[in-house]
């Protein structure tokens, strides 16, 4: 496994290895749902305030990798550490943004209430404290939806819903933000706004997003993690057609907005 990290051409400065505890540190990890390994011999370091996209063809294990980082799944072999601790022990530092269309849209909740769900853990009884509400409003301001706090969640557009979920992840003041396909199911304008917002957030937090669409994210992220059973990390500016071809198979053109997905699996080695 190679680990090439260059800081020279990057717009934001990446902390060098050894600087701090890595935000994400994966060592010799194997994961399987049944028999065949979905992820094999994964070694990966992601540093604080890095802006990373995890890419790979459908079925490559990128969402699985995300769920492992969240502590929703446990590896069969190897370790995953988030800021030096197991993910399930360090969930206060993790913000998670799922895909909005997986949610039940008829659930009765206002925008502010959805954001407050990000603070639920120890909350009991009906009322949230004034400071919790204040935090939720601040988080909504960050994503630019401060004016919509009393609106029903289900009445928002796709892009707005995605932003509300970002606010819900930010409200607990995490150190690392994990995204599942942030640009899926939103239109081109909303997509660009969303990526600008994530870029801005990534100045203060480690932002990791899973995406199938390299075209859009490559303009924004510092590093790309290619997943296809094995995992390799490349700085975005070193990403070449050859690497992409290796990842997705041979019939791939490096164009904006979409790859032709093939189920063919290619290893890096």
């Amino acid at each position: 496994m190679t680990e090439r990290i260059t800081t020279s051409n990057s717009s934001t400065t990446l902390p060098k290895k050894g600087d701090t505890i890595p935000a994400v540190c994966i060592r010799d990890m194997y994961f399987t749902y049944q028999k065949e390994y979905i992820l094999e011999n994964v070694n990966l370091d992601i540093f604080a305030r890095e802006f990373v996209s995890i890419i790979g063809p459908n079925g490559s294990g990128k969402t699985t990798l995300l769920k492992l980082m969240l502590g929703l799944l446990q590896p069969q072999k190897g370790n995953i550490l988030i800021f030096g601790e197991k993910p399930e022990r360090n969930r206060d530092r993790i913000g998670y943004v799922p895909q909005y269309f997986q949610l039940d849209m008829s659930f009765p909740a206002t925008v502010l209430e959805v954001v407050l769900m990000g603070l639920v853990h120890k909350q009991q009884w009906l009322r949230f404290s004034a400071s919790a509400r204040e935090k939720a409003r601040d988080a909504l301001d960050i994503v630019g939806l401060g004016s919509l706090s009393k609106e029903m969640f289900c009445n928002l557009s796709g892009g707005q819903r995605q932003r509300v979920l970002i606010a819900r992840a930010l409200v607990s003041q995490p150190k690392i933000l994990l995204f599942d396909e942030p640009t899926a199911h939103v239109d081109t304008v909303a997509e660009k706004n969303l990526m600008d917002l994530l870029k801005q957030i990534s100045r203060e937090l480690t932002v990791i997003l899973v995406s199938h669409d390299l075209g859009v994210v490559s303009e924004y992220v510092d590093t790309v993690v290619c997943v296809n059973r094995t995992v390799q990390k490349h700085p975005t500016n070193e990403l070449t057609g050859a690497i992409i071809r290796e990842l997705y198979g041979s019939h791939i053109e490096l164009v904006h907005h979409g790859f032709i997905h093939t189920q063919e699996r290619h290893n890096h080695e």
Partner: protein
Amino acid sequence: MNELWHTFIDPNFPFLRYVFVSGILASISFGIVGSYVVTKNMVSLVGAISHSVLAGVGLALFLQHRYQIGFITPFYGALFAGILSAIIISLVSKYITGRQDAVIGAIWAVGMAIGMVFLAYTPGYVDPMSYLFGSTMLITKNEIKNLIFLDIIILAIAFVYYPQFWAYCFDEEFARVRNVPVMFLNMLLLIMSAVTVVMMMPMVGIILVLAQLSLPVLIAEQFVSRLSLLMLGSIILCMLTSTIGLMGSYKLDLPAGPVIVLTSMSIYILVYLFKLIKKTINKISP
């Protein structure tokens, strides 16, 4: 109506008062648990629990009539079977990953089968119909005491865990990432559903109970914007429909359970049509 009122206030005839009061009391738990169950989309799990409650009813009647164990009433038998099947179903939904749907369906039917076998062994003739579709004749003063007790427990749990339940019903995966005890809540909610089903058993029966659990919530959902109001609205609607249904059944001399369920359904259809017409009018003349 006058005649009904006179019977209602007749001091020598407390039975009718018990029926109406138990409808009102059961509605409190129904509105709360129903709101959680409907928003979490687990009505079919509760269906499996409510049907397998028959196993407990059968067992209790068998023990009562065969071995003269008087304190095991069908109510306690139902409560025991309901809670047991709630625990089994919550374990199934955690540990069985494939074909969960079919396993739940099997539990649904097996519970009823066990109940019927016990009833067949029970000496004398016991009519399962009154447990399946409800019979207000089963309601006694003791039942009212049980209802009050269970209402208090369910209200207390629902209030203490409200935010956790709320986040869990909206987005279970996110709740897990926030360290909300999802597995515990899932089991707790199923047990609460089991208790609620048993509470309403004499009124609407274990088969019709699903409709009375979900219809008031579906009606209330058309008007409210938050979960706490959904609960309040469902409680009021459940009280309203069970009272109207009971009055209707008395007037028309029909069994109470079906009339209550049909009352709820009629209101739901009316509300739905009203919304549809309003929408169409808005479209034509903006």
